[in-house]
C-alpha cells in the first residue's frame, strides 16, 4: 500500500483531481445547454493546432503545443456556431463535421511531418489516449493556475452564465453581451479540454465534461450545488482512477477515470433521492396503492349511499369487486383498508366503512369539487 503514496502517484492523482474538478464544473453548463458533445468536438479539433504549433515553432514545451491546440479547438467551435447559426445544418451535424474534418486535417499534418527525417514529435497515441504517467510536477502547477483562473471567472460571471444557460434571450434583453459570454464560456471549456488531452486523451475527455455534470444534476435542484458537486465528482473520479491505475498493472489511467465517472452516473441515476429511478419507482408504487385503496373506499361509500337504511349493514367482497375496473382482486385491498382502520368487517363475509373511512371519502369529494372550481 505504501507504493500508492509515492511521489508520482500523488502528482498524477493531483493532476487528475484538478482536471476533473475543472471539467466537471464547466461541463455542468454544457450539459444544461444541451451541448454535451461540445467537448468531443473541441478535443478532436485540437489536433491540427497541436501539430501546427509544433511545425511552426519546433517547440516541444507543452505550453506552446497546448496553446496551439486551444486555438484550433476554439476555432473549430466558432465554425460550428457559424454553421449552425447561419445555415439549415443543425448543431449536431456541424459538430460532427468539424470534429472529423479537423481531426483529418491534423492527421494529414502529422503524417506529413513524421515523414521528415528530423521530426521527433511524440506519436499520436499520447494524444489519443493521454499519458497520465508523463505528468510532471510542473504540469500540475500549471493545472492549478488554470483552475484558479477558470474558477475565478466562473465566480465573476456567475449570474451572467446562469442566465446564458437558462434564458439567453432574456439575458440579451437585460443588456448582457450574451454572444461574448458564450464565447468566453466555450473558451474556458476549450482550455479545460486541452489540459485534459495530456492526461486522458481525445476521446475520453468528452466524458469528463459530461459524466460528472449529468451525475450531479440528479442530486440537487440548484445550479450552484450542481456545479460544485460536478466538480467534486470529477475530482473524485480523477483521483480514484489515478490511484487504481497505479495500483493495478496495465490499467490505463484515462479509461479507468472514465469508467469510474460512468459508474458514478449509474449510481446517481438509479439511487439519487427524489429524482433517481428507485425513488421514482417507490413513488409510483405508493401512488398506485393509494389509488387502489381510494377506489375501493369510494366503491364502498357509493354502495352504502345507495340504501337509506338507518341500521348499519355490509357489502360482500363480490359486490365491491363487481364495481371495480379490472383492478385485480379486492380482497387484499380490503385487508389493507382494515389494517388502516378505514374499513371493517361486518359479520364474516361483509364489509363496511368505518367513520374514519367515511371522513376520508368525504374529504376526497370535497377536494375534487373545489378543484373543479379553481383549476389549480
Amino acid at each position: 500500500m505504501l507504493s500508492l503514496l509515492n511521489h508520482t502517484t500523488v502528482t498524477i492523482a493531483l493532476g487528475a483531481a484538478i482536471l476533473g474538478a475543472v471539467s466537471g464544473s464547466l461541463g455542468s453548463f454544457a450539459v444544461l445547454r444541451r451541448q454535451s458533445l461540445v467537448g468531443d468536438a473541441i478535443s478532436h479539433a485540437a489536433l491540427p493546432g497541436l501539430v501546427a504549433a509544433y511545425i511552426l515553432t519546433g517547440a516541444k514545451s507543452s505550453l506552446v503545443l497546448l496553446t496551439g491546440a486551444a486555438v484550433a479547438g476554439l476555432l473549430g467551435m466558432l465554425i460550428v456556431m457559424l454553421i449552425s447559426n447561419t445555415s439549415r445544418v443543425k448543431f449536431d451535424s456541424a459538430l460532427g463535421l468539424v470534429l472529423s474534418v479537423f481531426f483529418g486535417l491534423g492527421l494529414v499534418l502529422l503524417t506529413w511531418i513524421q515523414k521528415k527525417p528530423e521530426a521527433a514529435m511524440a506519436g499520436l497515441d499520447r494524444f489519443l489516449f493521454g499519458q497520465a504517467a508523463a505528468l510532471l510536477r510542473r504540469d500540475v502547477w500549471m493545472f492549478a493556475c488554470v483552475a484558479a483562473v477558470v474558477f475565478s471567472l466562473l465566480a465573476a460571471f456567475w449570474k451572467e452564465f446562469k442566465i446564458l444557460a437558462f434564458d439567453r434571450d432574456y439575458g440579451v434583453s437585460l443588456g448582457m453581451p450574451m454572444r461574448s459570454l458564450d464565447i468566453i464560456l466555450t473558451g474556458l471549456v476549450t482550455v479545460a479540454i486541452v489540459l485534459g488531452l495530456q492526461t486522458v486523451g481525445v476521446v475520453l475527455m468528452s466524458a469528463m465534461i459530461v459524466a460528472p455534470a449529468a451525475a450531479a444534476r440528479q442530486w440537487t435542484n440548484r445550479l450552484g450545488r450542481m456545479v460544485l458537486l460536478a466538480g467534486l465528482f470529477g475530482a473524485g473520479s480523477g483521483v480514484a482512477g489515478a490511484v487504481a491505475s497505479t495500483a493495478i498493472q496495465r490499467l490505463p489511467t484515462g479509461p479507468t477515470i472514465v469508467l469510474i465517472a460512468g459508474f458514478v452516473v449509474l449510481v446517481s441515476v438509479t439511487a439519487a433521492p427524489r429524482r433517481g429511478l428507485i425513488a421514482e419507482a417507490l413513488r409510483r408504487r405508493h401512488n398506485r396503492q393509494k389509488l387502489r385503496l381510494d377506489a375501493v373506499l369510494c366503491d364502498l361509500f357509493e354502495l352504502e349511499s345507495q340504501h337509506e337504511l338507518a341500521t348499519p349493514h355490509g357489502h360482500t367482497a363480490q359486490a365491491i369487486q363487481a364495481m371495480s375496473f379490472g383492478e385485480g382482486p379486492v380482497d387484499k385491498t380490503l385487508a389493507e383498508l382494515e389494517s388502516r382502520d378505514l374499513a371493517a368487517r361486518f359479520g364474516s363475509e361483509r364489509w363496511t366503512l368505518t367513520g374514519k373511512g367515511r371522513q376520508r371519502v368525504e374529504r376526497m369529494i370535497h377536494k375534487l369539487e373545489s378543484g373543479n372550481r379553481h383549476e389549480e
Partner: protein
Amino acid sequence: MDGSPGIKPHVVSAEAAAGEPDSTTATPSPGLAIEVSDLTVAYHDRPVLWDVDLEVPAGVLMAVAGPNGAGKTTLIKSMLGLVKPAAGRVLIHGAPYREQRTLTAYVPQRGSVDWDFPTQVLDVVMMGTYGKLGWLRRPGEKQREQAMHCLDRVGMADFWRRQISHLSGGQQQRVFLARALAQDAQVYLMDEPLQGVDATTERAIIDILRELRGQGRTVVVVHHDLQSIPEYFDWLTLLNVRRIASGPVESAFTPENLRRAYGGRVAFLSSRETGIPEKSTALSDVAVPPDEKPDWVR
C-alpha cells in the same frame, strides 16, 4: 440607478437624442412610450414584418393580435433588439432600446426555456434584478426582498423554494411575470403571458397588468384570445405582417379590421353597434397556416 419607478423619460431621451446624430430630426414626442417607424424584418426570404409604423402612448395596456405567423413575437423581439430589422427603427421613450434597457422589461414565451433547469422560483425572479446590478455584483438581501415582494404580488410567495420543474403552466407564467416586475420598468413587453394558463391565473395576471397601467407604465401583450380584448385592454394593434390597425380598442377593434387581419376566414361577427363581437368561437385557432413543414419533403 436606485431603481425607483419615477425615472424621467424626458431627461433620458434628451441625452440619448444628443448622442444620436440621426435622431435629431425626429424629436421624440413626450407622451409616447414606444415609437416604431418603417419597421421591416425578414427571416431568410420571407418578410415577417413589413413597413410597420406604431405609436404607443405611455400608460396604456395594449394587446398585439393577429393570426399565427403575423409577426407578433417578431414585433416584440425587434422592440427588444433581439432581431435585427432590415429597415426601420424602434424608440422606447424616445431613444433606441440599448439606451433604455433599464426602462424595459421582457416576459418571453413560457415554452422558450427548459423548465427542468436546476433552479428555484426565487432564483428565477431574482434574475430580474441582474440588469441593474451590473458586472461582478452579486444579488444580496435587497434584491432578495425585492424578488420576494414581486412573488407576493403574483400570489406565489409560498412557492419561493419550489424547484421550477414542479410548477404548473400558470405558475410558471406567474414566475416569469414576477421576474419582469422585479425589473421595475416603465415598459413591459410580454409574449403571450396568458397562453395556456387557467382562469384564476388569467384574472390574477390581468389584475397586475392593470395595476401597472394604473402606475402610468406601459404594457404590451401579445394576445391570442380576441374575445377578451375589449374587456382586458384599452389599446390594440392588429398585425398581419403589415400593421392592420393600431389605436384605442374602441376604434381599432372593428369587424372590418379583424377581417383584414385574419383574412376572410373569420366567419363570426354578429356585432352590436359598438363593433364588439358578441361571440367568437375559437378565434385563436383561425390561422394563416405557417409555412413550417420541412421543405425537403415533397
